[in-house]
């Protein structure tokens, strides 16, 4: 038997229906000249660095730079152009398309009331310089980016995984990583808690949180067919009494006349 072919480079969910004549509209990109503050900022950057592309989208300027310039560009933005915050910094996975990560730095200037995005592309095994000396908020953002994408950062004082365990295999936000986790993820907790030798006895972890097993009486109860916890399923009908229908009274000592129900705030 042959397994059906599935694309391995991008295992994210895809629409099951697509109209091949439909062309997705684009969010318009406005020229930088349309905003005076952004235009003067870009002129300062252009004088010092190589700018690959720059435009304004939805009110925020996007500037593409060389990945080697990242520290200098951010230093210039902070010291000369008063962009005093690095609000966010992360990556986008384009490995399937071009073998690259797109890195973005989301900046904010509180005195100019402007937000801009510095972007660059790096190859999968390429190293990116840490910007932690310019903005300390990059400390955890870079760690998270390494954890989630495997982007290699140089010059970070404590480059360790942040959200996933230290010995986790692979980087979960890559498009090649399945949503339910890969083979290594199935065995991770079994190996941790019991040891590898128990793999045959316990079996792999169920990683699909939405899976329902009708024979499982540990996790699922069967209404009207109740059995003791973990016992095999039975088709014998059990009687359920409801309080509303005059059945068992669950709280035996409750006196209704003693209870006080407030209609509104005293």
């Amino acid at each position: 038997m042959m397994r059906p072919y599935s694309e391995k480079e991008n295992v994210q969910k895809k629409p099951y229906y697509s109209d091949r004549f439909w062309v997705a509209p684009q969010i318009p990109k406005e020229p930088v000249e349309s905003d005076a503050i952004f235009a003067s900022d870009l002129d300062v950057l252009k004088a010092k660095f190589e700018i690959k592309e720059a435009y304004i989208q939805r009110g925020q300027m996007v500037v593409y730079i060389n990945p080697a310039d990242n520290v200098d560009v951010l230093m210039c933005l902070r010291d000369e152009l008063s962009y005093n915050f690095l609000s966010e910094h992360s990556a986008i996975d384009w490995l399937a398309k071009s073998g690259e990560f797109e890195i973005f730095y989301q900046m904010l200037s509180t005195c100019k009331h402007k937000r801009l995005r510095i972007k660059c592309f790096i190859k999968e095994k390429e190293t990116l310089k840490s910007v932690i000396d310019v903005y300390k908020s990059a400390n955890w953002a870079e760690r998270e980016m390494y954890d989630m994408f495997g982007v290699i950062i140089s010059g970070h004082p404590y480059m360790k995984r942040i959200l996933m365990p230290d010995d986790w295999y692979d980087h979960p936000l890559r498009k090649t990583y399945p949503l339910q986790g890969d083979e290594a993820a199935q065995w991770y907790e079994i190996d941790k808690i019991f040891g590898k030798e128990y793999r045959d006895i316990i079996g792999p972890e169920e990683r699909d949180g939405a899976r329902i097993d009708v024979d499982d009486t540990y996790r699922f109860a069967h209404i009207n067919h109740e059995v003791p916890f973990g016992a095999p399923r039975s088709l014998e009908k059990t009687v359920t009494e409801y309080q509303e229908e005059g059945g068992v009274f669950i709280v035996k000592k409750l006196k209704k006349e003693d209870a006080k129900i407030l209609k509104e705030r005293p």
Partner: protein
Amino acid sequence: MQKVNRLKPFFENLEFEREDNHMIVNFGPQHPSSHGQLRLILELDGEKVSKATPDVGYLHRGMEKMAENMIYNEFLPTTDRMDYIAASSNNYGFALAVEKLIGLEVPRRAKVIRMMLLEINRISSHLFWLATHALDVGAMTIFLYAFREREYTLDLIEDYCGARLTHSSVRIGGVPLDLPKGWIESLNKFINHLPIDIGDYEGLLDQNRIWKMRLEDVGVITPEQAQSWGCSGPMLRGSGIAWDIRKEEPYELYDEVEFDVPVSTTCDSYGRYKLHMEEMRQSIRILKQLIPMYYETSPEIMAHAPQYLSAPKEQIMTQNYALMQHFVLVTQGMRPPVGEVYVVTESPKGELGFYINSQGDPYPYRLKLRTPSFFHTGFLQELLVGEYLADVVAIIGNANIVFGEIDR
């Protein structure tokens, strides 16, 4: 040699037995004052912290990965689980980001209702902050008082959307429901009484000797630190930087209502406590202005955009084409234009940002959640150094971190 793959404590580069006055303390992740699952590895020199290493990830659910595998409307209830103390503010941040992405204008009544929900959530979050922070520091009474008032905010939200914790009270393109009958009256009752309650809290705490000793000059954040570490919200305004996104980059109708942005220049925990109290008063002020604005609006609560949003239920049930649209939008999802947005809102904790990169598919290509608590927790490694061990709990409580949005 320790076996790495067994569930035993495994600390590389950490020495527990030392001859000098140093000690390493593991704080959390099950510590009641760690506000969730924060684990801190504290290196102590006597009683002073000489190095702090926050360790997070115990509540990591991979929301960004989930978002890439969900249509936009499916993801909205997941955002409830980020900052679960004020769930509506996350719903709203996400809905606003998608609206910016597809370029949608929301009806005025929906805007008013959204702002009401946001401000009630802010009050609810601040009350929760005050209660747990005071409890951590040792004030039990304030915990009970603040939770009593928080109950009324939860009742209001429950009356509106039926949920108390995971609200999902905002939809992309508007709000699901109009305000129920009698809601405005109970809101009025609540906001008329709350200033008295806030006065009670302040009466208990403001001049309280213990409270002042525990908070004054503890957790001092200089403006430079706050900027460099990407602090936002009360953590930033507590350092004397007046930056409130509602004021500076107004969304919805925040440019039409009058309110002040409280700023504290003392930079310490006590200043941030005063700030939270004042912010609640400003929220009440906004809510009071919103009530007459609500009555002036026309009754539409969802935007009309058939390409992206389903028609109202009455139309779906009566008109064939609306039903077809609805079927396509539910089974396949809306397809926003190609492009990217980064949209920020002022959540009770600070700057809540949603970065969405859309490639024209029903699933976002990349969705990055910028949460204030993540950056505030990262800042702890510098903030805690030099403080006493007993103040660590006060500083964590004061930073107002919620683990749902740190680990996501």
